[in-house]
C-alpha cells in the first residue's frame, strides 16, 4: 500500500534544463539556477515537463539528474522525472535513478499512444516493482490522457511505493475526488500554477510548479500562509502573480520560464526545437512577463542606472533593466517601436510608435500634421509631457468607433504615465522628446475595457522596444523562417 512521507510537502520547482548556444546541457547554468531556488524550496524536480524531459536523450536525463543531485548535496529531496512512453524505458530509467540516489521519481502517465486505464495501471505497477518511492503524474494537457479517479485511487493504494500524485490538470473536481479517496494516506500535490492557493486551501500537501523557478519565494509565502490559516494573505499573493503564472502555464511553459530567468539575469538558454522563441510564448507575452516580474513584492528584475544621450544633453535614469537593456541609449533623432496586444481579435491593439527629439523629424511631423490635416483626420495631442500625437490607423467613421478610440487614448496615456514612473521616460527628457502613436482599433471592436487595456500594453511594450532597440537584428534573423503574419493567409 502507498504511504505518506514526512518530507514530501511544500514547494518544489520543476527545474528547467538549461542549454548552451550549442544546444548541450549547460551544467554551470543548471547549478546556478539550483543555487537561486534552493533557499526558498522544500525540494527540487529535475527533468519534469518544464525540464523538457521529452526532448532529452536518456544519457542527458541521467546527466541532468546527476548534476542536480551533486549540487543539492542532500540539502533537500530530489524527485527526478523518469517517465517515458513505454514501460520498458520507464522502468530502466527509474531503476537507474534509484541507483543514482534520488529521493523519489516523478512518473508521468504514458503518453502519445493512448493506453487504456488498465494498461496505465499495469505500467505503474511495473514501475512500483523497481522499489523506488514514486509520484504519479497527471498532466492531460501534454500526455493526452486524464487519469480516471479509480485508476489513480487503485494505483495509490494498491502499490507499495507510491507516495503521492501530482495533478497538473487544474481540474479541481478531480483533485477533490482524490481528497475524498486517498487524503492522508498519500500526498496530493498540485501542479497547475493558476490554482495553487485554492488547491492548498482545499488540502493539497504541496506544489510542483514551473513558475517556482522564477518566484519560489512567492509560492513559499502562499504555502506558509495557508499552513498558518491566513487565507487572506495566501489569496493576495496568488492574485498578485496570477497573470505571471497564466502566461507561464498557457504560453509554452518551458520557453516562458527560460526567457523569464534570462530577463532576471539567470541565463539558461532557449527551449529545444520545435519550441521556438516567439512561438507559444509570444513576443508580447515576454514583454508582459517582464512587467509582471517587476511588480512590487515580486521584485525579480532589479533597477539599474541608464544614461539617455540626447546629444546636447545627458539624462540619468534608473529602469528595470534586463541583460538586453543598453546602459547608454542614444540616437534620439528618431526611434521606432512597435507594440501588439491581444486577444480578442477585434479588440487587439497594434501600435506604431515614434519617439524623437521635438526639433527632429518627430516633432516637425507633429506640428505639420496639426497645422494641416490634423482635425480632419481626428489626430490629437493627448499629452504634453512628452508631447504626444495620437493617430488612428483606420479612419474613424462612426460614433461607436470614435467612442472606442477614446478608450484606446486612455490606454496609451496610461502607458506613458507608467513609463514616466518606471524611468523609461525620465523627467529630464519629457520636454525634449515627442511621441507619435499610430494606434489601430478594429472597426468591429466592442469591449471598451479590452481596447483600453490592450492599447496600454501595446504602447508600454512599444516604448521599451523603441528605447532598447528591440527586436534586434539577431532575433529577426533567428525568427524570420518561422514568422507567420496572421493576415498573410486566406480564410
Amino acid at each position, binding site marked *: 500500500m502507498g504511504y505518506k512521507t514526512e518530507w514530501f510537502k511544500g514547494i518544489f520547482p520543476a527545474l528547467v534544463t538549461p542549454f548552451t548556444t550549442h544546444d548541450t546541457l549547460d551544467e554551470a547554468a543548471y547549478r546556478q539556477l539550483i543555487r537561486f531556488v534552493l533557499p526558498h524550496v522544500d525540494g527540487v524536480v529535475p527533468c519534469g515537463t518544464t525540464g523538457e524531459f521529452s526532448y532529452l536523450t536518456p544519457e542527458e536525463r541521467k546527466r541532468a539528474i546527476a548534476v542536480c543531485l551533486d549540487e543539492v548535496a542532500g540539502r533537500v529531496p530530489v524527485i527526478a522525472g523518469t517517465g517515458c512512453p513505454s514501460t520498458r524505458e520507464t522502468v530502466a530509467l527509474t531503476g537507474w535513478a534509484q541507483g543514482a540516489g534520488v529521493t523519489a521519481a516523478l512518473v508521468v502517465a504514458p503518453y502519445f499512444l493512448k493506453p487504456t486505464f488498465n494498461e496505465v495501471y499495469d505500467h505503474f505497477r511495473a514501475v512500483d516493482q523497481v522499489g523506488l518511492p514514486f509520484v504519479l503524474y497527471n498532466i492531460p494537457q501534454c500526455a493526452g490522457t486524464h487519469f480516471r479517479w479509480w485508476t489513480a485511487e487503485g494505483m495509490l493504494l494498491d502499490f507499495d511505493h507510491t507516495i503521492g500524485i501530482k495533478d497538473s490538470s487544474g481540474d479541481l473536481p478531480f483533485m477533490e475526488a482524490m481528497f475524498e479517496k486517498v487524503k492522508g494516506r498519500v500526498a496530493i500535490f498540485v501542479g497547475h500554477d493558476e490554482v495553487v492557493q485554492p488547491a492548498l486551501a482545499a488540502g493539497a500537501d504541496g506544489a510542483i510548479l514551473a513558475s517556482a523557478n522564477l518566484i519560489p519565494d512567492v509560492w513559499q509565502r502562499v504555502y506558509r500562509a495557508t499552513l498558518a490559516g491566513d487565507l487572506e494573505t495566501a489569496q493576495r499573493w496568488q492574485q498578485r502573480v496570477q497573470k505571471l503564472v497564466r502566461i507561464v502555464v498557457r504560453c509554452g511553459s518551458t520557453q516562458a520560464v527560460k526567457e523569464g530567468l534570462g530577463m532576471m539575469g539567470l541565463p539558461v538558454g532557449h527551449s529545444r526545437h520545435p519550441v521556438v522563441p*516567439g512561438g507559444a510564448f*509570444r*513576443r*508580447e507575452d515576454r514583454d508582459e512577463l517582464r512587467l509582471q516580474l517587476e511588480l512590487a513584492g515580486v521584485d525579480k528584475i532589479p533597477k539599474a542606472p541608464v544614461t539617455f544621450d540626447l546629444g546636447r544633453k545627458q539624462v540619468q535614469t534608473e529602469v528595470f533593466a534586463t541583460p538586453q537593456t543598453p546602459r547608454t541609449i542614444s*540616437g534620439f*533623432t*528618431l526611434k*521606432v*517601436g*512597435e*507594440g*501588439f496586444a491581444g486577444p480578442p*481579435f*477585434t479588440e487587439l491593439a*497594434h501600435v*506604431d510608435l*515614434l519617439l*524623437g527629439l521635438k526639433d*527632429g*523629424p*518627430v516633432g*516637425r*511631423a*507633429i506640428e*505639420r*500634421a496639426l497645422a*494641416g*490635416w*490634423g482635425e480632419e*483626420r481626428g*489626430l490629437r495631442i493627448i499629452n504634453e509631457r512628452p508631447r504626444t*500625437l495620437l*493617430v488612428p*490607423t483606420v*479612419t474613424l467613421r462612426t460614433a461607436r468607433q470614435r467612442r472606442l478610440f477614446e478608450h484606446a487614448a486612455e490606454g496609451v496615456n496610461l502607458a506613458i504615465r507608467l513609463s514616466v514612473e518606471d524611468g523609461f521616460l525620465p523627467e529630464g527628457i519629457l520636454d525634449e522628446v515627442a511621441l*507619435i502613436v*499610430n494606434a489601430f482599433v478594429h*472597426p*468591429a471592436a*466592442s469591449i471598451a475595457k479590452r481596447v483600453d487595456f490592450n492599447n496600454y500594453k501595446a504602447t508600454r*511594450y512599444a516604448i521599451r*522596444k523603441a528605447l532598447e*532597440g528591440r*527586436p*534586434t*537584428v*539577431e532575433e*529577426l*534573423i533567428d*525568427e*524570420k523562417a518561422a*514568422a*507567420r*503574419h*496572421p*493576415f*498573410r*493567409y*486566406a*480564410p
Partner: protein
Amino acid sequence: MPVKLPWLKGVFPALVTPFVKKTEEVDEEAYRLLIRSCLPHVDGLVTSGTTGEFPYLTRDEQRRLVEIALEEAGGKPVIAGCGASSTQEALTLARDAQAAGASAALVVTPFFLHPSDKGVYQHFYDIATGVDLPIILYNIPQVVDRYLPRTVVQDLADLPTVVALKDSSGNLTYTMELLEYAGDRIDFFVGHDEVVLPALAGGVSGMILASAQVYPDVWQQVFRLVAEGELDEARALQRSVQKLSRIFCRHGGGVAVKAALQLMGLDVGVPRRPLKPVGGALLHETRAEIRLELEKLGKIPVPEARFEVPTGPLAGRFADLEITPDVIAAHGLRTGSGAAGEGLNRVQIDLIAGGKRTPLGDAYALQLTYPLHGREALTAILEPALTVRPPTLLLPALPQKNLRQANMIYGPTQAALARAIVDALEAGRIPPAAVEEDVMVALATVHPRALDRHALYHSVHAAAGRALAQAFPGTTDQEEGHHGLQD
C-alpha cells in the same frame, strides 16, 4: 420496414430567414424573392433550419415561413425545420408543419440541456409517433455540442416515419458508419458544404446546404455528375466553391450566407441579435473574401481596375514623400527598384533608404500621421511584434479602395517586404551602420485585382529583394553564405 420517399433526393437549400434592419421583423417579400432566385436549380426547400436562425423564430413565424415556401415552391417539396430544445415544443412545430402542408419535418438533436441517449431516442420517438409527417433526423454537433448517437439512429431507423438523416458534422467516418447501420432503411443527406462530393460518392442521397441558395446551380451539376460517374468534373466543381463553402461552414454560417446574398443583390436584411451582420462571427475581412470568391464564380461582376506602375527615372518616383531627385543627390539617399510576378500577381517595389537626419527621416515620421488617404503607410513587420531594421514603411502606390485590396497589402505584401529585408540583413547586404542610422520607405505597386495571397507574397519578396540589391549594391554580397551581422 420503412419505405423510402422517391422525392427525397437532390439539392435542398437551407433558406436564410430575411429580417428587416432595425425592427428585425421577418421580411416576407425578401423571402419570396430568395426562393424565386434559387428555385430553378433546386429539388425542394428547407425552412427554418440552422441557417434560417430557427432558435430565434417564434412558432407563428416558423409556420408562416412554411406557408410562404409552399406558395412559392411550385409543387416542389418543402421540408420544415422543427427544431426545439424540448420535445413538446418540437412536436408542436411538427404538427404546425403538417397542418400547413409541409412534405417532411427536419428535427435537430435536442440541445442546451444534454439529455441522455435514452432521452434523445424518446424525443425523436415521441415526434415520429405524434405527428403524421415524414421525419428527417438532424445531426449538427457544431451547435448542439454532441453527436446523435449511432445506436440511437440505428433504432430510430426502424420507425416507419423516420425517413432520413441530415449529417452536418462533416465527419465522414460518422456518415459512413451510419450508412453501414441504417442505410438500408433511411436516406442520408449531407449538410456540410465542404464535403458534398465525397459524401455523395460515399452514398448519400442529396444535400441540404446553406450554400445551396448562393450557388444551387453548382451543386445541381455536382449532384448530376456524381450520379453519372463523372467524378473528375465533379471534383473540379467542388473545388471551385471550396473556399466559399468553408467560409459559410466555419466563418459565420447563415450570417455569411446573408452577406453573400446581399453582395449578389438579394436584400435579405440582417440576422437577429445577438448575431451581428458583420464584425461578429463574420469578420469584415472575411466578407471582403466572399466578394472576391463570388467574383471568381461569376456571381457578381468584376469591377474595372487599372494597373499602372510608376515609370520614369527612379529618383522621380518619391514625390509623395517630398523627396526630389535633388534631395536624393544632396543627401546621398539610396534608391532601388524591382519588379516580379505575372498578370494579377505583378508587383513593383520602389525603395528609398537614407539617414534619419535627412529629409527621409521627416518623411517617415510624417507618413505615420497619414497624409495620403487610402494609401496609409504601415510598418514592415515579419509578424506583429517583429519589426524589421532599419525601420521601414510600406506605402501602397495605388489607393486602397476596399478591404479586399487592403487584405493584399496588410499581410502578404507587408510580410514579404519584411522577409526580403531580413534576408538582406542576413546576407550582410545592408551595412550595420544603416541598421541604426537609416530608415527606408518602400512604394509598393500591387495589382488592384490581385487575389492570390501566396503568389503575391512571392512576387513581393522577389521584387523587394531586387530593389534592395539595387539600393545596396555589392556591399558585401554574401548571399550564399547567410552570415549574420554578428559574425
